[in-house]
């Protein structure tokens, strides 16, 4: 799985950080999301899918392979 973030779309809600704190964080100044691990291990896939699903800006795109 590869995690892609459409940064200009991010609205800094922080939902992804709550769903998958191992994979997402937020910038201090404006809250825009940061991908900490663009190729997370299988044990994190469920929480990353949850993060993508709860993103209110549809800014997280997962390439499953």
């Amino acid at each position: 799985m590869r995690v892609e973030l459409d940064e200009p779309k991010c609205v800094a809600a922080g939902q992804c950080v709550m769903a998958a704190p191992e994979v997402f964080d937020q910038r201090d100044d404006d809250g825009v999301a940061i991908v900490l691990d663009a190729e997370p291990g299988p044990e994190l896939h469920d929480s990353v899918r949850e993060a993508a699903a709860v993103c209110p800006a549809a800014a997280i795109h997962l390439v499953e392979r």
Partner: protein
Amino acid sequence: MRRIVIVGASAAGLAAAETLRREGYAGTLTLIGAEADAPYDRPPLSKQILASQWEAERLALRTAEELAALDLDLRLGVVAAGLNLAARTVRLDGGAEVAYDGLVIATGVRPRRLPGQGAHVLRTLGDALALRRRLAPGRRLAVVGAGFLGAECAAVARGLGCEVTLLEPAAVPLAHALGETVGRVLSQAHEENGVDLRTGVTVSAVTDEGVRLADGELVAADEVLVAIGSQPNTEWLAGSGLALSDGLVCDRYSAAAPDVYGAGDVARWHNELFGVSMRIEHRTNAAEQGMAVARNLLRPGDRKPFTPVPYFWSDQYDMKIQAYGYLRGHDAVEVVDGALAQRRFVAAYRTGDRLTGVLAVGMSPKVIRPWRSAIAGGVTWSQAIGPAKPGPAVTENEVMSGERAG
């Protein structure tokens, strides 16, 4: 369960469909949407779309390939007209019937309107594109209603060089939702940015020349946007036996009847975390509720109450406003970080003895997140802030650490 029907193909309906597939549901999945467009995102309509910063294609919630992978019986531009609970069928406009074993109702809301012709509303992509075509430097726009939608559109129109009049019946915009102090701070931004904010005025009708106020005065405008709230799309459920009361009435699991669930703007459910019946018209809730009802539908023996901390954000001028929790009906507001005057602050909301919400403007996520956790944890006001103070509810510059909120 072999046939699931989702009525409503926006954020909530799509989230339900995706969750069902992700959790292994392999049966027929019918997604019915009244709009002809594939599922798209609404919050940018009053922001980047209205400002012409984005084109419509950017709003698509999923690519064609992603939708195809869900293996949907996708029916767009199709309106649901009735529900037969006993027979477990949805009747479509035109008379066809679709049978279900499980049903998700996510038909959303539509804008309230005013008497008279020719006013804009803003709910759909078509609405936003129609309004933006009419906005240009020097054009006069009257916005009726200074809630979040009206405020965002006023801000965008000012940015485009329009002459904007913002008309609001309350003395202080958003005071009923956020309290007078916060409402006043937010509305100062309109005046500083050259919007003619007129409070305490009631608009009675839209006319060819603008809007007519209740006292007879005409406010001249080239374009009128009516942003006075919305009403749930529940007419098609009338007589079905489902309870309707400002939305589809659902229980704590967001169920309206056995194997029938409500999600998104249309659903009023009992949120146990706050102990109140609520209907939330926010983008984040639509996704979360769609996901929650999908899981409850698939696992009748292991249902979970839907107990989110509601979240919304609003972009106005240079302000980013974020709020967690349930602010409506609060008893007191206290500024707990930052300063109102700089429009960088966190305001905490008390209802009874509970911390029930926070609203932040221009604050870092590290500051806001502990407050969200505190609300989710159901902490009391005194645990979060200290003993409730008598006298004026708002004080400035009190700082609270995340640990104390914990």
